[in-house]
Protein backbone atom coordinates (compact mmCIF):
# COMPACT_ATOMS: atom_id res chain seq x y z
CA UNK A 1 0.00 0.00 0.00
CA UNK A 2 1.49 3.32 -1.08
CA UNK A 3 0.24 6.69 0.13
CA UNK A 4 1.57 9.93 -1.31
CA UNK A 5 0.73 13.01 0.70
CA UNK A 6 1.33 16.08 -1.43
CA UNK A 7 2.08 19.01 0.84
CA UNK A 8 1.20 22.65 0.26
CA UNK A 9 2.80 24.85 2.92
CA UNK A 10 0.46 27.60 4.02
CA UNK A 11 2.25 30.81 5.05
CA UNK A 12 -0.85 32.93 5.49
CA UNK A 13 -4.63 32.74 5.24
CA UNK A 14 -6.82 35.63 4.11
CA UNK A 15 -10.42 36.21 3.07
CA UNK A 16 -10.83 37.27 -0.56
CA UNK A 17 -12.79 37.09 -3.77
CA UNK A 18 -12.21 33.47 -4.64
CA UNK A 19 -10.97 30.31 -2.96
CA UNK A 20 -7.37 29.90 -4.05
CA UNK A 21 -3.86 28.92 -3.04
CA UNK A 22 -0.98 30.92 -4.48
CA UNK A 23 2.60 31.44 -3.23
CA UNK A 24 1.75 30.06 0.18
CA UNK A 25 -1.29 32.29 0.60
CA UNK A 26 -4.58 30.51 1.14
CA UNK A 27 -7.50 32.74 0.17
CA UNK A 28 -10.99 31.81 1.31
CA UNK A 29 -14.18 33.23 -0.18
CA UNK A 30 -16.03 33.60 3.07
CA UNK A 31 -19.66 33.75 1.87
CA UNK A 32 -19.18 30.83 -0.46
CA UNK A 33 -17.69 28.76 2.38
CA UNK A 34 -20.48 29.75 4.77
CA UNK A 35 -23.14 28.90 2.18
CA UNK A 36 -21.50 25.53 1.79
CA UNK A 37 -21.75 24.96 5.54
CA UNK A 38 -25.38 26.11 5.65
CA UNK A 39 -26.35 23.32 3.26
CA UNK A 40 -26.82 21.27 6.42
CA UNK A 41 -30.12 22.70 7.64
CA UNK A 42 -29.24 21.81 11.24
CA UNK A 43 -26.77 24.71 11.22
CA UNK A 44 -28.64 27.77 12.50
CA UNK A 45 -25.80 30.23 12.83
CA UNK A 46 -22.32 30.21 11.31
CA UNK A 47 -19.36 32.55 11.04
CA UNK A 48 -15.78 32.08 9.86
CA UNK A 49 -12.63 33.58 11.33
CA UNK A 50 -8.93 33.32 10.66
CA UNK A 51 -6.70 33.21 13.73
CA UNK A 52 -2.91 33.15 13.78
CA UNK A 53 -0.21 32.33 16.31
CA UNK A 54 0.55 35.33 18.51
CA UNK A 55 -2.90 36.92 18.19
CA UNK A 56 -4.62 37.47 21.51
CA UNK A 57 -7.51 35.15 20.78
CA UNK A 58 -9.11 32.49 22.97
CA UNK A 59 -11.24 29.76 21.40
CA UNK A 60 -13.82 27.93 23.54
CA UNK A 61 -15.64 25.54 23.36
CA UNK A 62 -13.51 23.86 20.67
CA UNK A 63 -14.99 20.62 19.40
CA UNK A 64 -12.79 19.32 16.60
CA UNK A 65 -9.71 20.02 14.45
CA UNK A 66 -9.13 18.80 10.91
CA UNK A 67 -6.29 19.19 8.41
CA UNK A 68 -7.68 20.42 5.07
CA UNK A 69 -7.12 17.76 2.43
CA UNK A 70 -8.45 16.74 -0.95
CA UNK A 71 -7.96 13.85 -3.35
CA UNK A 72 -7.00 14.63 -6.93
CA UNK A 73 -8.83 11.51 -8.12
CA UNK A 74 -12.15 12.69 -6.67
CA UNK A 75 -12.46 10.17 -3.84
CA UNK A 76 -13.52 11.66 -0.51
CA UNK A 77 -11.07 12.16 2.37
CA UNK A 78 -13.13 10.51 5.14
CA UNK A 79 -14.45 7.31 3.56
CA UNK A 80 -17.53 5.86 5.24
CA UNK A 81 -18.13 9.15 7.05
CA UNK A 82 -18.42 12.20 4.80
CA UNK A 83 -17.85 10.25 1.62
CA UNK A 84 -18.45 6.86 0.03
CA UNK A 85 -16.94 3.86 1.81
CA UNK A 86 -13.74 2.97 -0.04
CA UNK A 87 -10.31 1.82 1.17
CA UNK A 88 -8.06 4.59 2.49
CA UNK A 89 -4.26 4.62 2.53
CA UNK A 90 -3.57 4.17 -1.19
CA UNK A 91 -2.91 6.79 -3.85
CA UNK A 92 -2.53 10.54 -3.73
CA UNK A 93 -3.94 13.06 -1.30
CA UNK A 94 -3.17 16.78 -1.18
CA UNK A 95 -2.79 18.48 2.19
CA UNK A 96 -2.67 22.12 3.30
CA UNK A 97 0.08 22.11 5.92
CA UNK A 98 0.64 24.40 8.89
CA UNK A 99 -3.09 25.01 9.19
CA UNK A 100 -6.24 23.45 10.53
CA UNK A 101 -9.98 23.88 10.48
CA UNK A 102 -11.25 24.31 14.04
CA UNK A 103 -14.88 23.89 15.02
CA UNK A 104 -16.10 26.04 17.89
CA UNK A 105 -19.57 26.11 19.45
CA UNK A 106 -21.18 29.55 19.20
CA UNK A 107 -22.82 29.01 22.58
CA UNK A 108 -22.95 25.58 24.07
CA UNK A 109 -20.08 23.43 25.20
CA UNK A 110 -19.84 20.17 27.09
CA UNK A 111 -17.68 17.60 28.78
CA UNK A 112 -15.72 16.83 25.63
CA UNK A 113 -14.93 20.38 24.49
CA UNK A 114 -11.74 22.32 25.03
CA UNK A 115 -9.96 25.65 25.01
CA UNK A 116 -7.19 27.03 22.77
CA UNK A 117 -5.18 30.22 23.31
CA UNK A 118 -3.33 31.72 20.35
CA UNK A 119 -1.01 33.82 22.52
CA UNK A 120 0.26 34.11 26.08
CA UNK A 121 1.16 31.27 28.41
CA UNK A 122 -1.61 29.03 27.03
CA UNK A 123 -0.33 29.12 23.45
CA UNK A 124 2.21 26.34 23.96
CA UNK A 125 -0.32 24.06 25.63
CA UNK A 126 -1.68 22.64 22.39
CA UNK A 127 -0.24 22.40 18.89
CA UNK A 128 -3.16 24.44 17.56
CA UNK A 129 -1.79 27.54 19.29
CA UNK A 130 1.01 27.42 16.73
CA UNK A 131 -1.01 26.72 13.58
CA UNK A 132 -2.84 29.06 11.24
CA UNK A 133 -6.46 28.23 11.95
CA UNK A 134 -9.66 28.60 9.98
CA UNK A 135 -12.25 28.80 12.72
CA UNK A 136 -15.87 27.88 12.17
CA UNK A 137 -18.02 29.25 14.98
CA UNK A 138 -21.52 27.86 14.68
CA UNK A 139 -24.70 26.79 16.41
CA UNK A 140 -27.25 24.13 15.55
CA UNK A 141 -30.87 23.18 16.10
CA UNK A 142 -29.94 19.93 17.87
CA UNK A 143 -32.21 20.85 20.78
CA UNK A 144 -32.21 17.33 22.23
CA UNK A 145 -28.65 17.75 23.46
CA UNK A 146 -28.41 21.50 23.90
CA UNK A 147 -28.24 21.26 27.68
CA UNK A 148 -26.71 17.78 27.83
CA UNK A 149 -23.25 17.54 29.26
CA UNK A 150 -22.38 14.79 26.76
CA UNK A 151 -22.93 16.05 23.25
CA UNK A 152 -22.54 14.28 19.93
CA UNK A 153 -21.89 17.62 18.25
CA UNK A 154 -22.74 15.82 15.05
CA UNK A 155 -23.77 18.77 12.86
CA UNK A 156 -20.82 20.90 13.96
CA UNK A 157 -18.21 18.20 13.62
CA UNK A 158 -19.45 17.11 10.21
CA UNK A 159 -19.48 20.74 9.10
CA UNK A 160 -15.80 20.92 10.05
CA UNK A 161 -14.83 17.78 8.17
CA UNK A 162 -16.71 18.89 5.07
CA UNK A 163 -15.33 22.42 5.27
CA UNK A 164 -11.77 21.09 5.49
CA UNK A 165 -12.27 19.17 2.26
CA UNK A 166 -14.07 22.09 0.61
CA UNK A 167 -11.22 24.50 1.36
CA UNK A 168 -8.55 22.07 0.20
CA UNK A 169 -10.44 21.96 -3.11
CA UNK A 170 -8.23 24.85 -4.24
CA UNK A 171 -5.15 22.62 -4.39
CA UNK A 172 -6.84 19.66 -6.02
CA UNK A 173 -5.35 20.37 -9.45
CA UNK A 174 -2.07 21.91 -8.28
CA UNK A 175 1.38 20.35 -8.10
CA UNK A 176 2.44 19.83 -4.48
CA UNK A 177 5.62 21.49 -3.24
CA UNK A 178 6.75 18.30 -1.61
CA UNK A 179 5.52 14.72 -1.44
CA UNK A 180 5.69 12.45 1.61
CA UNK A 181 5.59 8.81 0.60
CA UNK A 182 4.42 6.09 2.98
CA UNK A 183 4.69 2.60 1.63
CA UNK A 184 4.06 -0.62 3.45
CA UNK A 185 3.41 -3.94 1.85
CA UNK A 186 2.79 -7.38 3.25
CA UNK A 187 4.41 -8.36 6.54
CA UNK A 188 5.78 -11.40 4.69
CA UNK A 189 8.77 -11.49 2.39
CA UNK A 190 10.32 -8.17 3.33
CA UNK A 191 13.88 -7.52 2.29
CA UNK A 192 16.35 -9.65 4.26
CA UNK A 193 18.10 -6.68 5.90
CA UNK A 194 14.79 -5.36 7.25
CA UNK A 195 13.76 -8.83 8.37
CA UNK A 196 16.81 -8.93 10.65
CA UNK A 197 15.65 -5.86 12.57
CA UNK A 198 13.36 -6.05 15.59
CA UNK A 199 9.76 -6.03 14.42
CA UNK A 200 7.27 -3.62 15.97
CA UNK A 201 3.51 -3.10 15.97
CA UNK A 202 1.78 0.13 16.99
CA UNK A 203 -1.35 -0.53 19.06
CA UNK A 204 -3.95 2.25 19.12
CA UNK A 205 -6.70 2.54 21.72
CA UNK A 206 -8.96 5.33 20.43
CA UNK A 207 -11.85 6.53 22.56
CA UNK A 208 -14.97 4.38 22.27
CA UNK A 209 -16.46 4.18 25.74
CA UNK A 210 -19.88 5.67 25.08
CA UNK A 211 -22.33 2.82 24.67
CA UNK A 212 -24.82 5.02 22.83
CA UNK A 213 -23.74 5.48 19.22
CA UNK A 214 -22.68 8.79 17.73
CA UNK A 215 -20.15 9.91 20.34
CA UNK A 216 -17.15 7.67 19.74
CA UNK A 217 -14.26 7.72 17.30
CA UNK A 218 -15.24 6.23 13.96
CA UNK A 219 -13.31 3.80 11.78
CA UNK A 220 -14.51 4.10 8.19
CA UNK A 221 -17.72 5.45 9.72
CA UNK A 222 -18.05 2.46 12.07
CA UNK A 223 -18.51 3.21 15.77
CA UNK A 224 -15.47 1.81 17.62
CA UNK A 225 -17.64 0.85 20.59
CA UNK A 226 -18.89 -2.06 18.49
CA UNK A 227 -15.49 -3.36 17.60
CA UNK A 228 -12.83 -5.96 18.24
CA UNK A 229 -9.16 -5.34 17.51
CA UNK A 230 -7.94 -5.77 13.97
CA UNK A 231 -4.79 -5.33 11.94
CA UNK A 232 -4.50 -2.21 9.82
CA UNK A 233 -2.04 -0.68 7.42
CA UNK A 234 -0.69 2.52 9.05
CA UNK A 235 -1.45 4.41 5.83
CA UNK A 236 -5.15 4.01 6.51
CA UNK A 237 -4.81 5.96 9.75
CA UNK A 238 -2.80 8.73 8.06
CA UNK A 239 -5.39 8.90 5.30
CA UNK A 240 -8.68 9.61 7.05
CA UNK A 241 -9.86 6.12 8.04
CA UNK A 242 -10.35 7.37 11.60
CA UNK A 243 -12.47 10.36 12.57
CA UNK A 244 -12.31 11.74 16.11
CA UNK A 245 -15.28 11.50 18.43
CA UNK A 246 -16.94 13.62 21.05
CA UNK A 247 -16.58 12.00 24.42
CA UNK A 248 -13.27 12.17 26.26
CA UNK A 249 -12.04 14.97 28.54
CA UNK A 250 -10.41 17.22 26.04
CA UNK A 251 -6.69 17.17 26.86
CA UNK A 252 -6.73 13.41 26.26
CA UNK A 253 -8.50 13.74 22.92
CA UNK A 254 -6.99 12.76 19.59
CA UNK A 255 -8.58 15.14 17.08
CA UNK A 256 -9.01 14.12 13.47
CA UNK A 257 -5.97 16.32 12.76
CA UNK A 258 -3.99 14.13 15.19
CA UNK A 259 -5.09 10.93 13.44
CA UNK A 260 -4.24 12.37 10.00
CA UNK A 261 -0.74 13.21 11.19
CA UNK A 262 -0.09 10.70 14.02
CA UNK A 263 3.55 11.51 14.89
CA UNK A 264 4.10 8.11 16.52
CA UNK A 265 3.25 6.34 13.25
CA UNK A 266 5.43 8.72 11.25
CA UNK A 267 8.32 8.14 13.69
CA UNK A 268 8.00 4.36 13.32
CA UNK A 269 7.96 4.79 9.54
CA UNK A 270 11.17 6.87 9.73
CA UNK A 271 12.92 4.05 11.60
CA UNK A 272 11.52 1.34 9.33
CA UNK A 273 14.33 -0.51 7.56
CA UNK A 274 16.96 1.38 9.59
CA UNK A 275 16.61 0.34 13.21
CA UNK A 276 13.37 -1.62 13.17
CA UNK A 277 10.87 -3.47 11.06
CA UNK A 278 7.51 -1.68 11.36
CA UNK A 279 4.83 -4.32 10.94
CA UNK A 280 1.82 -2.01 11.07
CA UNK A 281 -1.02 -1.01 13.34
CA UNK A 282 -3.22 -3.07 15.61
CA UNK A 283 -6.36 -1.02 15.98
CA UNK A 284 -7.99 -1.64 19.35
CA UNK A 285 -10.42 0.47 21.38
CA UNK A 286 -11.45 1.45 24.92
CA UNK A 287 -14.29 -0.28 26.71
CA UNK A 288 -16.43 0.04 29.80
CA UNK A 289 -16.78 -3.50 31.12
CA UNK A 290 -13.91 -5.57 32.47
CA UNK A 291 -14.61 -8.52 30.21
CA UNK A 292 -14.63 -6.24 27.15
CA UNK A 293 -11.28 -4.80 28.19
CA UNK A 294 -9.79 -8.24 28.71
CA UNK A 295 -11.23 -9.54 25.45
CA UNK A 296 -9.68 -6.66 23.52
CA UNK A 297 -6.30 -7.16 25.24
CA UNK A 298 -6.43 -10.86 24.40
CA UNK A 299 -7.10 -10.06 20.73
CA UNK A 300 -4.25 -7.54 20.59
CA UNK A 301 -1.75 -9.98 22.09
CA UNK A 302 -2.84 -12.75 19.73
CA UNK A 303 -2.55 -10.48 16.68
CA UNK A 304 0.89 -9.24 17.75
CA UNK A 305 2.17 -12.78 18.22
CA UNK A 306 0.63 -14.01 14.97
CA UNK A 307 2.23 -11.10 13.12
CA UNK A 308 5.59 -12.06 14.63
CA UNK A 309 6.08 -8.83 16.61
CA UNK A 310 9.14 -8.64 18.85
CA UNK A 311 7.94 -5.39 20.33
CA UNK A 312 4.86 -3.20 20.59
CA UNK A 313 3.90 0.35 21.47
CA UNK A 314 0.47 0.91 23.05
CA UNK A 315 -1.11 4.38 23.10
CA UNK A 316 -4.42 5.26 24.80
CA UNK A 317 -6.79 8.16 24.11
CA UNK A 318 -8.00 8.78 27.60
CA UNK A 319 -7.39 8.38 31.29
CA UNK A 320 -9.28 7.04 34.27
CA UNK A 321 -10.93 3.73 33.57
CA UNK A 322 -9.34 3.52 30.08
CA UNK A 323 -6.10 3.03 32.01
CA UNK A 324 -7.45 -0.44 32.79
CA UNK A 325 -7.61 -1.20 29.03
CA UNK A 326 -4.15 0.28 28.58
CA UNK A 327 -2.53 -1.68 31.40
CA UNK A 328 -4.39 -4.89 30.48
CA UNK A 329 -3.09 -4.57 26.92
CA UNK A 330 0.52 -3.92 28.01
CA UNK A 331 0.39 -6.86 30.41
CA UNK A 332 -1.18 -9.20 27.84
CA UNK A 333 1.56 -8.31 25.34
CA UNK A 334 4.37 -8.73 27.88
CA UNK A 335 2.88 -12.06 28.96
CA UNK A 336 2.91 -13.11 25.32
CA UNK A 337 6.63 -12.32 25.14
CA UNK A 338 6.28 -9.06 23.22
CA UNK A 339 8.48 -6.29 24.63
CA UNK A 340 6.08 -3.44 25.09
CA UNK A 341 6.20 0.25 25.84
CA UNK A 342 3.26 2.56 26.50
CA UNK A 343 2.42 6.16 25.66
CA UNK A 344 -0.12 7.86 27.88
CA UNK A 345 -0.95 10.79 30.12
CA UNK A 346 -1.47 10.64 33.89
CA UNK A 347 -3.95 11.87 36.44
CA UNK A 348 -1.92 12.77 39.51
CA UNK A 349 -4.27 15.58 40.48
CA UNK A 350 -3.80 19.22 41.23
CA UNK A 351 -1.38 18.41 44.06
CA UNK A 352 0.50 15.89 41.95
CA UNK A 353 0.22 13.27 44.69
CA UNK A 354 -2.34 10.99 43.03
CA UNK A 355 -1.68 7.58 41.57
CA UNK A 356 -0.58 8.06 37.95
CA UNK A 357 -2.97 5.50 36.40
CA UNK A 358 -6.02 3.88 37.99
CA UNK A 359 -4.51 0.42 37.58
CA UNK A 360 -0.85 -0.35 37.80
CA UNK A 361 1.25 -3.36 37.06
CA UNK A 362 4.98 -3.75 37.42
CA UNK A 363 5.12 -5.17 33.89
CA UNK A 364 4.49 -1.63 32.64
CA UNK A 365 8.16 -0.78 33.00
CA UNK A 366 8.58 1.45 29.94
CA UNK A 367 6.16 4.36 29.69
CA UNK A 368 6.36 7.65 27.83
CA UNK A 369 4.22 9.98 29.89
CA UNK A 370 2.88 13.14 28.29
CA UNK A 371 1.01 15.21 30.88
CA UNK A 372 -1.14 15.51 33.97
CA UNK A 373 -4.84 16.02 33.26
CA UNK A 374 -5.34 17.51 36.72
CA UNK A 375 -2.66 20.20 36.46
CA UNK A 376 -4.08 23.54 37.55
CA UNK A 377 -3.67 26.25 34.92
CA UNK A 378 -4.27 29.99 35.13
CA UNK A 379 -4.52 32.00 31.94
CA UNK A 380 -4.77 35.78 31.56
CA UNK A 381 -7.64 37.38 29.62
CA UNK A 382 -7.41 37.46 25.82
CA UNK A 383 -8.60 40.43 23.78
CA UNK A 384 -10.91 38.31 21.66
CA UNK A 385 -12.97 35.25 22.56
CA UNK A 386 -14.44 33.17 19.76
CA UNK A 387 -17.34 31.06 20.97
CA UNK A 388 -18.61 31.57 24.50
CA UNK A 389 -16.10 31.46 27.34
CA UNK A 390 -18.83 30.85 29.92
CA UNK A 391 -19.23 27.36 28.42
CA UNK A 392 -15.98 26.38 30.20
CA UNK A 393 -17.60 26.58 33.61
CA UNK A 394 -21.29 26.37 32.82
CA UNK A 395 -21.60 23.38 30.53
CA UNK A 396 -19.52 20.80 32.36
CA UNK A 397 -16.33 21.12 30.32
CA UNK A 398 -14.02 18.55 31.89
CA UNK A 399 -11.42 21.14 32.86
CA UNK A 400 -13.76 23.83 34.19
CA UNK A 401 -16.23 24.41 36.97
CA UNK A 402 -18.90 26.94 37.86
CA UNK A 403 -17.95 27.39 41.45
CA UNK A 404 -15.24 26.30 43.84
CA UNK A 405 -14.98 27.27 47.51
CA UNK A 406 -11.27 27.99 47.29
CA UNK A 407 -10.53 28.75 43.65
CA UNK A 408 -13.72 30.61 42.74
CA UNK A 409 -15.29 30.17 39.29
CA UNK A 410 -13.25 28.95 36.30
CA UNK A 411 -14.24 31.94 34.23
CA UNK A 412 -13.56 35.22 36.03
CA UNK A 413 -15.28 38.52 35.34
CA UNK A 414 -12.10 39.99 33.80
CA UNK A 415 -11.93 37.15 31.27
CA UNK A 416 -9.02 35.34 32.89
CA UNK A 417 -9.52 31.65 33.61
CA UNK A 418 -8.44 29.03 36.11
CA UNK A 419 -8.93 25.48 34.97
CA UNK A 420 -7.48 22.00 34.84
CA UNK A 421 -5.29 20.88 31.96
CA UNK A 422 -8.19 18.46 31.28
CA UNK A 423 -9.91 21.23 29.36
CA UNK A 424 -7.03 22.23 27.06
CA UNK A 425 -7.96 21.14 23.55
CA UNK A 426 -5.84 18.05 22.71
CA UNK A 427 -3.31 19.26 25.27
CA UNK A 428 -1.62 15.99 26.20
CA UNK A 429 -0.69 15.04 22.63
CA UNK A 430 -0.27 11.32 23.27
CA UNK A 431 -0.44 10.86 19.48
CA UNK A 432 3.21 11.87 19.71
CA UNK A 433 3.57 15.67 19.56
CA UNK A 434 3.90 16.16 23.31
CA UNK A 435 6.94 18.18 24.40
CA UNK A 436 5.63 17.69 27.93
CA UNK A 437 6.85 15.00 30.26
CA UNK A 438 5.77 13.96 33.72
CA UNK A 439 8.50 14.41 36.30
CA UNK A 440 8.89 13.66 39.98
CA UNK A 441 9.18 16.64 42.30
Amino acid at each position, binding site marked *: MKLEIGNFHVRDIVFGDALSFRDGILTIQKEEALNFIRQDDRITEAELYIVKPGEEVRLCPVKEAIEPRVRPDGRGIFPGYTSKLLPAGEGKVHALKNCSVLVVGRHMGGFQDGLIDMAGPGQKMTIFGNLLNIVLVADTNEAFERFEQQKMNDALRRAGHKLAEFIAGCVKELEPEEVEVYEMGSVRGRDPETEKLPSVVYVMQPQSQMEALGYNDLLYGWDLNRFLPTYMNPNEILDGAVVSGSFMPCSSKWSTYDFQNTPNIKALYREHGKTLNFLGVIMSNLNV*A*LEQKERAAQFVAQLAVSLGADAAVVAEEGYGNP*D*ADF*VACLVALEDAGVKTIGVTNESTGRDGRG*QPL*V*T*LDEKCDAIVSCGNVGELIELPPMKVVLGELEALGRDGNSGGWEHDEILGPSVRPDGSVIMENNGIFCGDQVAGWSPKQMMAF
Partner: protein
Amino acid sequence: MVKEIERTGIPVVHMCNLIPVSKTVGANRMVPTISIPYPLGDPSTPKEDQWKLRYHRTKVAIQAIATDVQEQTVFSV
Protein backbone atom coordinates in the same frame (compact mmCIF):
# COMPACT_ATOMS: atom_id res chain seq x y z
CA MET B 1 -12.33 6.20 49.98
CA VAL B 2 -12.55 2.47 50.55
CA LYS B 3 -9.15 2.50 52.21
CA GLU B 4 -9.82 5.53 54.40
CA ILE B 5 -13.04 4.00 55.73
CA GLU B 6 -11.53 0.57 56.28
CA ARG B 7 -8.63 2.26 58.09
CA THR B 8 -11.13 3.25 60.81
CA GLY B 9 -12.01 -0.40 61.35
CA ILE B 10 -15.32 -0.44 59.44
CA PRO B 11 -15.23 -3.26 56.90
CA VAL B 12 -15.98 -2.16 53.34
CA VAL B 13 -17.07 -4.30 50.44
CA HIS B 14 -16.28 -2.71 47.10
CA MET B 15 -18.81 -3.46 44.38
CA CYS B 16 -17.29 -2.50 41.05
CA ASN B 17 -16.75 -3.69 37.54
CA LEU B 18 -13.07 -2.93 37.22
CA ILE B 19 -11.63 -5.37 39.71
CA PRO B 20 -8.02 -4.53 38.68
CA VAL B 21 -8.69 -0.90 39.65
CA SER B 22 -10.19 -1.96 42.94
CA LYS B 23 -7.18 -4.15 43.69
CA THR B 24 -4.85 -1.28 42.85
CA VAL B 25 -6.66 1.14 45.15
CA GLY B 26 -6.32 -1.44 47.90
CA ALA B 27 -9.85 -2.76 48.55
CA ASN B 28 -9.83 -5.94 50.61
CA ARG B 29 -13.29 -7.33 49.81
CA MET B 30 -14.56 -7.05 46.24
CA VAL B 31 -17.74 -8.11 44.45
CA PRO B 32 -17.79 -7.70 40.66
CA THR B 33 -20.58 -5.75 38.98
CA ILE B 34 -21.57 -6.01 35.34
CA SER B 35 -20.48 -2.69 33.85
CA ILE B 36 -19.52 0.89 34.59
CA PRO B 37 -22.69 2.80 33.58
CA TYR B 38 -25.04 0.19 35.09
CA PRO B 39 -23.21 -1.89 37.68
CA LEU B 40 -26.32 -3.67 38.93
CA GLY B 41 -28.85 -4.03 36.10
CA ASP B 42 -28.44 -4.16 32.32
CA PRO B 43 -31.17 -1.94 30.83
CA SER B 44 -31.36 -4.14 27.73
CA THR B 45 -32.65 -7.04 29.85
CA PRO B 46 -36.15 -7.38 31.41
CA LYS B 47 -36.76 -5.55 34.70
CA GLU B 48 -37.25 -8.86 36.43
CA ASP B 49 -33.80 -10.09 35.38
CA GLN B 50 -32.21 -6.81 36.47
CA TRP B 51 -33.83 -7.16 39.87
CA LYS B 52 -32.63 -10.76 40.27
CA LEU B 53 -29.09 -9.79 39.39
CA ARG B 54 -29.08 -6.81 41.72
CA TYR B 55 -30.63 -8.74 44.61
CA HIS B 56 -28.14 -11.58 44.17
CA ARG B 57 -24.99 -9.43 43.97
CA THR B 58 -26.07 -7.21 46.85
CA LYS B 59 -26.63 -10.32 48.95
CA VAL B 60 -23.15 -11.59 48.03
CA ALA B 61 -21.74 -8.21 49.07
CA ILE B 62 -23.43 -8.35 52.47
CA GLN B 63 -22.22 -11.90 52.94
CA ALA B 64 -18.70 -10.71 52.05
CA ILE B 65 -18.57 -8.29 54.97
CA ALA B 66 -19.51 -11.12 57.29
CA THR B 67 -16.66 -13.23 55.92
CA ASP B 68 -13.15 -13.12 57.35
CA VAL B 69 -10.45 -12.84 54.70
CA GLN B 70 -6.66 -13.01 54.92
CA GLU B 71 -5.83 -11.21 51.67
CA GLN B 72 -7.52 -9.12 48.96
CA THR B 73 -10.47 -11.29 47.97
CA VAL B 74 -12.82 -11.21 45.00
CA PHE B 75 -16.11 -12.91 45.90
CA SER B 76 -17.62 -14.91 43.09
CA VAL B 77 -21.15 -14.18 41.94
